[in-house]
């Protein structure tokens, strides 16, 4: 019986339906299914499927976003239940995300955050136009494993290098890993500024993040 429910949970993610994923999450609580089971056997299966399909060029970016939102809704119901049981999801790691100073573009970054959360990372998204101090400050405050920075403009991407240089100056690497992304970012740039990871899309970003925290 739970098998049927787990299938429906995965489907609600694939369909990107937050209403249904919320409903199914609540139903699983009523049926005394362990929240972690609901997450790992139900909803995460859907996230993984959509991610794989996207990687194959078979699923679309809007579907990815909707799947992420549906996952968020389900987690919002299930996480409090986990805490009540005195348990928690196995956290992959802590990530601070930001769009660099002088840049206010954030769609890609937000999607990366959604996908990382859906995959078990604890994400603090600072938003746009964030100075190096703010980014590094937050990373130290929450003891982050990864800093992820986004830039859309050729005029602002140089800020990514500045943050890395500051981290190195303070001796905070390799304890904190740095991922960068954004439309003008290339592998050459990533090598040049000695970032630890880069992906062209949000699904790849999750993979890289897992590798950086040694969980892949």
């Amino acid at each position, binding site marked *: 019986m739970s098998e049927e429910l787990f299938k429906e949970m995965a489907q609600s993610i694939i369909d990107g339906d937050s209403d249904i994923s919320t409903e199914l999450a609540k139903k699983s609580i009523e049926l005394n299914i362990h929240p972690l089971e609901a997450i790992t056997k139900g909803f995460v299966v859907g996230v993984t499927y959509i991610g794989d399909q*996207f990687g194959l*060029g078979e699923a*679309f*970016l*809007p579907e990815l976003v909707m799947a992420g939102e549906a996952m968020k809704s389900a987690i919002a119901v299930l996480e409090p239940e986990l805490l009540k049981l005195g348990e928690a999801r196995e956290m992959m790691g802590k990530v601070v995300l930001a769009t660099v100073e002088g840049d*206010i*573009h954030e*769609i*890609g970054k937000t*999607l990366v955050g959604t996908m990382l959360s859906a995959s078990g990372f604890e994400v603090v998204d600072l938003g746009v136009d964030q100075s190096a101090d703010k980014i590094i400050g937050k990373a130290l405050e929450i003891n982050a494993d990864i800093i992820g920075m986004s830039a859309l403009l*050729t*005029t*602002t991407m*140089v800020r990514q290098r*500045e943050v890395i240089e500051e981290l190195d100056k303070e001796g905070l690497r390799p304890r904190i890993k740095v991922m960068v992304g954004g*439309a*003008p970012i290339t592998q*050459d740039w990533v090598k040049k500024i000695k970032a630890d990871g880069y992906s*062209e*899309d949000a699904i790849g970003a999750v993979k890289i993040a897992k590798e950086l925290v040694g969980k892949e």
Partner: protein
Amino acid sequence: MAQLKFLSDDEVKGMHNATLRILNEVGYVWTHKPSLEILTGAGCKIKGNRVYFPPELVEDSIKKAGKKVSIRGRGGVTKNLGDGNLYFHNLGGARDIYDAKTGGHRIAQMQDVRDATRLLDALENCHTITPFFTPQDVPGELMSLAMYRHALPFTTKPLQGPGVQFGPETKYAVRMAEVIGDPKEVLTLALSPVSPLTIPDHEAEAVIEIAKAGISFGALPCPTAGATSPMTISGSIAQQNAETLAVVILAQLVNPGLPIVYCGRLAMMEPRTGASVWGGVELALASAGTVQLGHSYGFAVNVYGFSTNAHTIDAQDGFERGLNAAIPALAGADELSGIGEMEAGVMGSYAQMVLDNELAYSVLRLRKGFSADEEALGVDMIARIMDGSRNFLGQKHTMKYLKAGEVQLTKFAERSSWEAWERNGKQGMVDHAIDAAEKILREHEVTPLEPQQEKELDDIMSAAEKELVKKR
């Protein structure tokens, strides 16, 4: 010649009404206090971080806005947008440069800004020039100004200003323009609001500076359909319209009658990756729709144009840019951008610039159409030759229409026999373009600036560096 219309007049009106609703009911994210004061003084309302524009103000600003835009080069030639002709200019702001000979690419440097400008100066169908590359060997804060400064010496054609984002940057651009003439006559400036419906404080400040200086202004919203604007082309054009009109309204309040170029830069999102699609034919549809809407207001309209996602000069490149230029041209565009563009605007190429100059002839030929009056029909002449030579080769009528351009005389297109083509080394269109580009770069000279002018520009750049580049 009848213009290509994808929208009925009612649909254009519907888009305008949708825009009015967006501006009046949805609002615009706007926090820059000085410009908000100007807007509220004219009847706009503020709620939270959004400003709302009453329809009367929108209509009034459209009416008031200057519709005649002209730009003069230091060589004396003036281009008047909206005079019924189609003008072309190049892509502005590419990061990379493509080498058509080797098929490789590299990051553009300042020298490429100079070379591109000089090359475009030699191309007949590049009517105005925009600084081409965003050189990576210059601090970010100075990039736009450096692009303009280093383009100025290498053309005498009308040179558009770079895209600006900041008030102080705008002031320096105007000062540089002063070196070659009255900025109101020799400079145009463009600025991109952020989609959807957002203007950062520093950009609002830049709009005020542009208007104060009386510089002809083009707002360049760059929404991506499905990501930062609706998935539908029509919804995106309406949003793009709202994004444009909001800053036009501010500009008109600061300087009533400021000349405006109505621009569109809408592209679709590639749904499988999130990238921008500049090569798909939806760009042609979006551009054509934008032309119709802009024309309904009486503005001269600037859209793309030569546009592709390709990384090489190949069939995809030719096909995509051909359609994307021809369609809006036939819809009546006043200005088309894209000369030299590749890879969704990330990359530029000298061979592509030369090729686009050639393709532009074909686009212009399409736009010219063909005459069907009595003389063109030539029935009397047909009768005459049937009684005589039975062919049209020796006829004055034939030469007259030949000279008037009835058949376009292409330079690079391959039209010979296989044998002749083989004898000539199997050169194709791209090979010819590569050779021509190299020749132009080797030989073309531009009247230099006076030493005094060069010094003034250098002084302005130094001052800009002192003020704008943060000590880090």
